[in-house]
């Protein structure tokens, strides 16, 4: 247990918070917030996985090539792992489309039931 593990543990805590909101909350909007928290906890974890410090110490840099091809080696040594960042970008876009869809569903549900309370939306038995 070092200080470096703390972000991982916090990311998992965030995951649990999101799950709690989805399972325990009875308001459609709060469930949607739970989905977002859960989603971002997973994204955060993925970014943390890609974090690494350069071998000679010091803080890593973003994996963006600014100084032309000549700077490739220096960047490769100093940058964090770019793969998880690419994955997270994709995941954020997916999250956006899911959020748009679920909010649209929430609006339609409100039109039908006149409430956001899921206790009052019990046509289906589950």
């Amino acid at each position, binding site marked *: 247990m*070092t200080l*470096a593990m703390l972000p991982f543990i916090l990311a998992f805590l965030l995951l649990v918070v999101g799950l709690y909101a989805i399972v325990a909350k009875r308001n459609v909007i709060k469930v949607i917030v739970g989905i977002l928290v859960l989603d971002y906890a997973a994204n955060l*974890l993925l970014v943390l996985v890609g974090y690494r410090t350069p071998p000679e110490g010091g803080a890593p840099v973003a*994996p963006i090539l600014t100084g032309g091809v000549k700077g490739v080696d220096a960047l490769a040594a100093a940058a964090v*792992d770019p*793969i998880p960042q690419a994955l997270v970008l994709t995941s954020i876009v997916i999250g956006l489309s*899911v959020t748009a869809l*679920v909010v649209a569903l929430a609006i339609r549900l409100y039109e039908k039931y006149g409430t956001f309370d899921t206790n009052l939306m019990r046509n289906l*038995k589950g």
Partner: protein
Amino acid sequence: MAHLVPLLVALPLAGGFLMPVVGRLTGRRESAAALPILLAAVVLVMAVWLLLGADEPITYWVGGWDFPIGISMVADGLSRLMAVIVATISLVALLFSIDYMSRFTSPGLYYGLFLLMLAGMNGVVLSGDLFNMFVFIEVAGIASYALVAFGTESDELEASFKYLVLGTVASAFLLVGIALVYNVTGHLNWAKVAEGIAQAGGPTVPLYVAAAFFLMGFGLKAAMVPFHAWLPDAHPSAPAPISAMLSGVLIKASGVYALVRFVFSVFGGDPTLGWVLIVLGVLSMVLGALMAAGQEDFKRLLAYSSISQVGYVVLALGAAAVMRARGVSEGIVGLAVFGGLFHLANHAVFKALLFLCSGSVEYATGTRQLKELGGIGRRMPVTGACLRVGALAISGVPPLNGFWSKLFIIVALVLGEMYVLAAVTGVVSFLTLMYYAKVQRYVLGGEPSASVDRAREVPAGMAVATVLLAVLCVATSLLAVPAVRSRVMDPASRAVTAGGAAGPRERLMTADAEATERAAGRETRRAGVQPAGEALAVDAHGRRPAPGPLGARGSLDATGEGTAP
């Protein structure tokens, strides 16, 4: 041949984005179906061509980028079999949609979403790496959430909301699993992850934590008990052709197929995971059947029955993993895998048939309550006959396909000395026979009730679709014939059993690519520093050039501790 592989995804994807426009241009609803049916037919032809064309697995590198950089699509026996099943059910469901969907508005959006779902499923079964599979699962998933809500009545919206929430939880679990696997092995490509696990001397504790997340994620997608809560709401609420797609192929592509790939191709058929599959399979099989028996709503009964039948597939495959670890002969292990995959194909056919029949019945009578139906056979002879074929097939009455696959599973379990599981499978088959006898008695038997009396036979398109599937229910029995089996099913079984580090995906890499990779990899490991210039290229594929701040193992232990208590 290799160029067919990306087209299987690209064609429906392009069609999916064209359809909203096409739907607006073609005023009449029937003509909007032309393009999707054409595309689905082309996809089916290509998938069959791939299935029969070559024995060797085909790897396609997207964009022509080779191994360390590129993204791969892999078509081995299992992928091809799945692609053919998906395309067949899609084509039939689209034929059925022409008339059935005439009662709904916005055909362009419906067909667009349908094609997106098809593209997503093809992508799932052809992906060569974990993250791409995740993306395509999401594509298929988002399209299906929207399709479940397509009726926009309160039931549909509620079911879709529930489905979406649980689907998103599943996706988050998958993403966490992907992060953990990437942290331990430094790869996303199936074959390289498998190799990484083999090098570590089998799965370690952190990998089992990742496996738990994957199993929960795929379990939710496949609606295995205890992760099934969304399915009995979502599948019946969707329009009938979509119910057929969801129950027939979607839970199999993004649930069972992904689960099989993960357990066999990545974890090399690890027996611990095999037991987890057996437990999930037995729970789903038994509880699904018991819950189905108590249903009064036709489509809800079919939905619970899907949970039960998918349990057979998962049980058979889990048993195969355990048997292999126990040293049971390859022939018996192969029989269990064959039985599972055969049942998967069969269930796609007869469950799609039953859902389409339930759609026909609802179309003609306006009700799905079993007790309000009766004597359908007198008023709707074609639908009635198809419904009877489907019900007999799923109950396992010879000579229909369901009998053979259940027989193979039970025989494999007995030969593998898993007598209790064989007995449970037999009992559940009997339960299935019972509740489908109930369906036949209520829907087909007796005098036509008030709601059935005015019913007429459905339009030709719908009738043709159900008849096609009824014929397939008989025809797929032929997959058990050795000559056909060795051509169609055995490559798929081999793709499963040959999993692990030495699995087929390993052999897929071209010699050149493998040599490059080996040179780069060894160098890196020995020097401990990134070779100049290679770094970004290697990164782009997904290998970690140098360990993270905690070291690969260390940081994962940390995450493991975070979740364990």
